[in-house]
């Protein structure tokens, strides 16, 4: 079983040198802490920044410099600020190579639900619908089951969806899955997790072929 940091670390292994990457709020943000040595990526914050750096040192916070989660941040050399129209322009044009975000549910056709729970106060989709509609590569970081123990990898999303057929890969505490036309294809198991456990906790179509390697962290 992976903890949140290990999920982030595994996703960080998907980063390639030169990539432009948008990291969502929550576990995705942690990915920045595990970027492999020698891999230079540029982090995009959709409120108008390319080249996001770490949090500022205490006392150096600047209220004019925040990320999409409204957290105070810094920039790295070569960074650039722009307005929200250009920010979503570059997202829409497919210039952001990878988007990592959380989800409440993913369906085995790649649909994602992560913005609305009927009956609860709806806060809004923010930039998530724009990101999932346009990103070339979308990795979801999430827990495999919800608090009630129900699978979040489903045949069909029960919640209102954020985007259609867009998720390419999922990393949960149980393993790594490619989302293909055949469904959730189990590629790697988290240490100490069995295929049976994944099967028990996955409601959508699960593909398990051959020996599944244990994740290398």
């Amino acid at each position: 079983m992976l903890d949140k940091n290990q999920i982030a670390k595994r996703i960080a292994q998907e980063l390639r040198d030169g990539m432009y990457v948008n990291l969502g709020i929550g576990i995705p943000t942690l990915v920045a802490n595990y970027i492999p040595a020698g891999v230079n990526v540029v982090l995009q914050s959709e409120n108008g920044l390319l080249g996001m750096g770490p949090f500022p040192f205490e006392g150096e916070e600047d209220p004019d410099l925040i990320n999409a989660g409204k957290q105070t941040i810094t920039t790295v050399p070569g960074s650039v600020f722009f307005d929200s129209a250009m920010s979503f322009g570059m997202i829409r044009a497919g210039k952001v190579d990878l988007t990592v975000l959380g989800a409440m549910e993913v369906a085995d056709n790649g649909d994602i639900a992560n913005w609305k729970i009927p009956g609860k106060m709806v806060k809004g989709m923010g930039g998530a619908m724009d990101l999932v509609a346009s990103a070339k590569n979308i990795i979801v970081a999430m827990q495999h089951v919800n608090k009630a123990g129900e699978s979040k990898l489903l045949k069909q999303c029960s919640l209102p969806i954020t985007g259609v057929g867009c998720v390419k890969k999922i990393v949960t505490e149980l393993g790594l899955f490619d989302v293909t036309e055949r469904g959730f294809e189990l590629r790697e198991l988290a240490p100490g997790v069995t295929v049976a456990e994944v099967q028990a906790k996955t409601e959508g179509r699960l593909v398990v072929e051959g020996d599944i390697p244990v994740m290398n962290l």
Partner: protein
Amino acid sequence: MNKVYTDAAAAVADIQDGATLMLGGFGLCGIPENSIAALVAKKVTGLTCISNNAGVDDFGIGLMLQQRQVKKMISSYVGENAEFERQLLSGELEVELIPQGTLATRCLAAGYGMPAIFTPAGVGTEVAQGKEVRRFEFNGEEKDYLMEYAFEADFAIVKAWKGDTQGNLIYKDTARNFNPMMAMAGKITIAEVEELVPAGELDPNFIHTPGIYVHRIFQGVNYEKRIEQRTVRKRNAE
């Protein structure tokens, strides 16, 4: 022609009940603090506000919500705001949630004189309900897009870092966000700036909003610039 106003009260004086306003900012970053305070003092009501967020309980647009001045919010995310939630659930407040990129681009469209734009954001979701869907072959794939209309706002109210007497504006860091598009999109655009300088002092190569889009400008005072999520790291000990 003079675009310079003495203060926020003067600049917003003719905003009437029921007006549609665009308000710049992302969260509490880059919001027109002075103008919001003046709108609260003016007690104008029945407003439709187009703004990415709705402030927090005691700051930003939250101040206008407290006074029940807002009839409708058009936003992408309405965050942590208890009063907002109460008014929404009680039916006092109408809310239209739209994707952030769609919000930004509908402002851009207005500023660029384009009545509608196409975006894939929201295709296949409830955002697409009642909207025209159109398939294009573009960028190497065939894909559905929603047609979304340009916004029309009576007033756009933005906050910039520096401005000049011609209305030219410069923003700082991520406080730029929605301000430039909204500045272009208002029938009347009001800009408040931290520093107002005479025309000719800003480098013409590095102006974000040309003054042609700005009708009124004033130098704001007492910027609070509240931080929503103060996140820091510790310095390593030597």
